């Protein structure tokens, strides 16, 4: 069965590149760019794994994840978090919210694919 990934990221060229490599790896990819409506987008079609950027227009990735952790459907949803900031405080905040994998930009395509395959084995 095809694994579903939702990418919440507002940089179109990053989204396009990640979408391409994941599609080629066999994932069904959906994307969303707006922070304010991100929670609805996830709850409308809960994916197998979420790729979530921290700095989004309208709402931060941390806020979005905190709300998602309050819903039964997404309480245990595997999350790969992408951020330009990789300091200890950021990692600690991500860990508190139950982020499964924390990746700082710029990342390699291979790392993204490997991490998602570990979170949702095919």
């Amino acid at each position, binding site marked *: 069965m095809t694994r579903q990934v939702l990418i919440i990221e507002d940089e179109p060229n990053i989204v396009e*590149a990640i979408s391409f490599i994941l599609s080629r790896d066999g994932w069904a990819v959906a994307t969303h760019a707006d922070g304010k409506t991100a929670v609805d987008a996830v709850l409308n079609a809960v994916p197998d794994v979420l790729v979530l950027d921290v700095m989004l227009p309208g709402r931060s990735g941390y806020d979005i994840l905190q709300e998602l952790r309050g819903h039964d459907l997404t309480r245990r949803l595997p999350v790969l978090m992408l951020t330009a900031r990789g300091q200890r*405080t950021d990692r600690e905040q991500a860990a508190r919210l139950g982020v499964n994998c924390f990746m700082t930009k*710029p*990342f*390699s395509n291979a790392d993204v694919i490997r991490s998602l395959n570990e979170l949702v084995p095919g």
Partner: protein
Amino acid sequence: MRPHVVALVYSKEAAMPQSRLAGSRIRERRLFLGYKQSALAKAVGISAAYLNLIEHNRRRAGAQLVRDLARELKTDPRALTEGAEVALLGALREAGQRMPDLAPETHRSEDLAGRFPGWASLVAAQHQRIRDLEQLVEALSDRLTHDPELAASLHEVISAVTAIRSTVGILTGGGEIDADWQQRFMRNMRDEGLRLSGAAQGLVGYLDAGADQDMAPVVPGEELAAFLDRCDHHLDKLEGLDGAARDDISARIETLVAQVASVQTEAAKDVARRHFQQYAEDACAMPQGAFQAARRDLSGDPGRLAARFGQPLPSVMRRLAFLPAGRDVPAVGLVSCDGSGALILRKSVPGFAVPRFGAACPYWPLYQSLSRPGHPIRAVVEMPGTTPRRFLCQAVCLPREPLRFDKPPVFEAVMLIEPFDDAQVTTTTDGPILAVGSSCRVCPRTECAARREASLLAADPG
């Protein structure tokens, strides 16, 4: 908390420092006069061998012997026992304390300075350079953390680099890519390359402006702060106006506003105008000459100066901080904040870094005074560092405007910051010395109840 009672008593040692480096000075003076060592020794009644030991800083000359030597060398005894080496020795001791694990022989600093003055000066200069660089790192870190313009620029760069890296990985990583996708990725690369180039240029220009610490202002208050930092907050053009007509003072202020190159925007000019007006009022009420004389008479005590001039404490504190430092007048820092805690005025002194952006340490007496309006607070605080430094802080919070029934009062707190030298000053306090910092971001005190965010100095980058 009750205020500290601080008695300033200059120690005998500080007033008449004794240094074994006196030997080097004796030798220099003797050679200058062409006096033979044996002849000088005989003249003062000691052996040439003993004088040789003194001259090489291996023995300390007693007070009477120094007087005899000074008489023979036709100079003042103090010229043989005091000098620039006091500062040098202080710097060497501080440098030694920087890395105690290496167990430097700090008790032999005088030997080092006497026998190898060049090397000693080099160590002291490098210690000072390290300290300057540490302060610069703190300022830059402060800026990196809180400056929205810089954060946005960096985010732009990282986003572009991420897109390019990922796209390049696809194009060069093997695997079939049809022509349409190839074209799309090439177009994306071109767009991101242009974006990166623009962001990098902006970033370089921005950082260039801050290369010499004269950082580009980003808010109106900063434009004024850049100017005030350059003139050390002393506005010579607004001095000597006591007795001048109000119109003349206003004209002088407008001229100054127009002359300040860093104050360009209308918002910045308004901020500058208010500051200059306040400065002129303080200067008229406490003319420079009379104030400096009273400052010496009253040992710089703000409370007694306020009583002498009939002026509120904040005005006196500003005057103490903004008049130029000199031989008898130490450099004094000052900060002020409004009721929200936002810093309005910042004048640092070495060792007491005032954050350029964001909030400062809530343990500063400045913030304690906000909860006790009208009650002056005096406390000795200690700033962290390789060599912790102490400062006497005196703060007071008063309403900025006359009190009214129809509006809540607007408070402003002011804090004077004076270096507090344990070596020269004896203190009597009835409270603990407050452990404070600059801002959480650059403060290494990990066990602090007031901590808002992790310290960069203690951060684990991994």
